[in-house]
């Protein structure tokens, strides 16, 4: 290999340079007038205006709840097992039968359900693995936090009633 020199003949106009300079400046002048007079812009005023992402966008997780505000999660550990980033940490517990209107349908419950959003790669495998449709990915992408500790979300933070797909 090595450098391949491709020679190209320049016309007198191209060599003179100034014609191209004027041409370029006319283009930017047009753009300037578009921006200055007609306020044409390709960017958005972010916090006020938000970009409309696809319905399939994978943002922050949430855990869906049923009509009694009980989480659908049964602590089956499928999401924790499938997670390639090891960001889900579940501690399982037995659900109190008295407080469980569904009886045997939800025997287990997560005592704690932590998601480390800093480790998460938003692949969506947990959502695919979940047999109860408990863990889901919302379209929320505004995940900035002040400390690393704030990025570890617990069950209370994640629990949410399902409205559509979140």
């Amino acid at each position, binding site marked *: 290999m090595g450098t391949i020199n491709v020679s190209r003949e320049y016309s007198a106009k191209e060599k003179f340079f*100034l014609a191209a*300079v004027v041409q*370029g*400046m006319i*283009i*930017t*002048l047009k*753009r*300037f007038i*578009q*921006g*200055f007079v007609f306020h*044409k*812009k*390709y*960017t958005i*005023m972010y916090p006020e205006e938000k970009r409309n992402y696809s319905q399939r966008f994978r943002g922050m997780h949430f855990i869906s709840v049923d009509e009694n505000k009980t989480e659908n999660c049964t602590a089956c550990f499928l999401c924790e097992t499938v997670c390639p980033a090891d960001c889900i940490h579940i501690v399982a517990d037995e659900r109190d039968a008295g407080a469980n209107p569904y009886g045997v349908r939800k025997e287990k419950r997560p005592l704690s359900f932590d998601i480390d959003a800093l480790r998460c790669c938003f692949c969506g495998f947990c959502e695919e693995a979940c047999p109860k449709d408990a863990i889901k990915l919302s379209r929320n992408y505004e995940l900035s936090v002040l400390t690393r500790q704030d990025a570890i979300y617990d069950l209370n933070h994640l629990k949410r009633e399902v409205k559509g797909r979140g």
Partner: protein
Amino acid sequence: MDIFTLVQLLAKIVFVFAVSLGVIPFLVWFERRGSAWIQGRVGPNRVGPFGLIQPFADVAKFFFKEFWTPEHANKWYYHLGPIFALAAPLAALTIIPFGSFLVIGDQIVNLQIAHIDSGVLFILAFAGLEVYPIIIAGWASNNKYSILGALRGSSQIISYEISMGLALLSMLLVYGTFDLHLMVDWQKQKFFGFLPAWGVFINPIGALIFWISTFAETNRLPFDLPEGDAEIVAGYHLEYGAMKFALFFMAEYVAMIMASALLATLFFGGYHLLPGTGRILNTIVSMNGLSEVAAQNLKALFQFVSLFLKVSFFMVVMIWVRWTFPRFRFDQVMHLGWKILFPLALANVVWMSVVVYLMN
């Protein structure tokens, strides 16, 4: 020196420096907003109406940042760099005539801070000084990127100074004087009764060479190799923070103002009224029946505004060019400077001497 001379001199100094430093925030604002408009963005629009207060917010930030000096820098030269950078173009501004004269009482006030007979040489001397802050800052920072930027900057400025000087020389042949005030006075006449006798109509090639050279002299794109953000971070002012960086930043704009004012003075009629404004002035004078003194003072004001508008035009073009063209490669800069502009400027000097000989 009596008290009147002293006061008018001080007033002129304060006026020129206040105007040239006072427009910098608006230039910075225009640079940012204008670039946004050209690129289809919005630009800073949060602070104040249309984001006009943004430069002041920037300055406040610069003031409150830590005044930090790198360990490995040469302290004395490190601090000298930004001071030099701002002082040199500001000093050169003092000989730009910004109006004919004012009449106060029975005294005549020439609207030029320093009336120097060899004004052009003074300008060249201070334009030559502009290379020193770059070398000083780049060397004293003790940083490889800074020294690279300084080397590039110094070679570029010195190369383009030659073609700039030759373009100036061709105008010296036409005007037959070193005095900027007399040069502007010369451009008072008219060709064929309508065309103002601006230098650009006599010597268009010289004007073009001078214009291109000012871009290289002030380190503006497409000649911003000393800064070259993409390859050498920020070049010679890489190690500077807070107000020291702000001084470099201001110096760039003052140098731009100086170069534009010089271009307007030499080639675009200096403070002479823009075509058409003379009629407005005459109408105002005859309608209000102003005395001769008042008419002259009003004329001086019009002349200042004319120069201000001309300089603003060149500043806008500089900003416009910056957001149009990419940076030259270093060998292209040298090629343009030494193989195109230098012979062209030399030939132009010969050609202008023929023209001047024929005209007389």
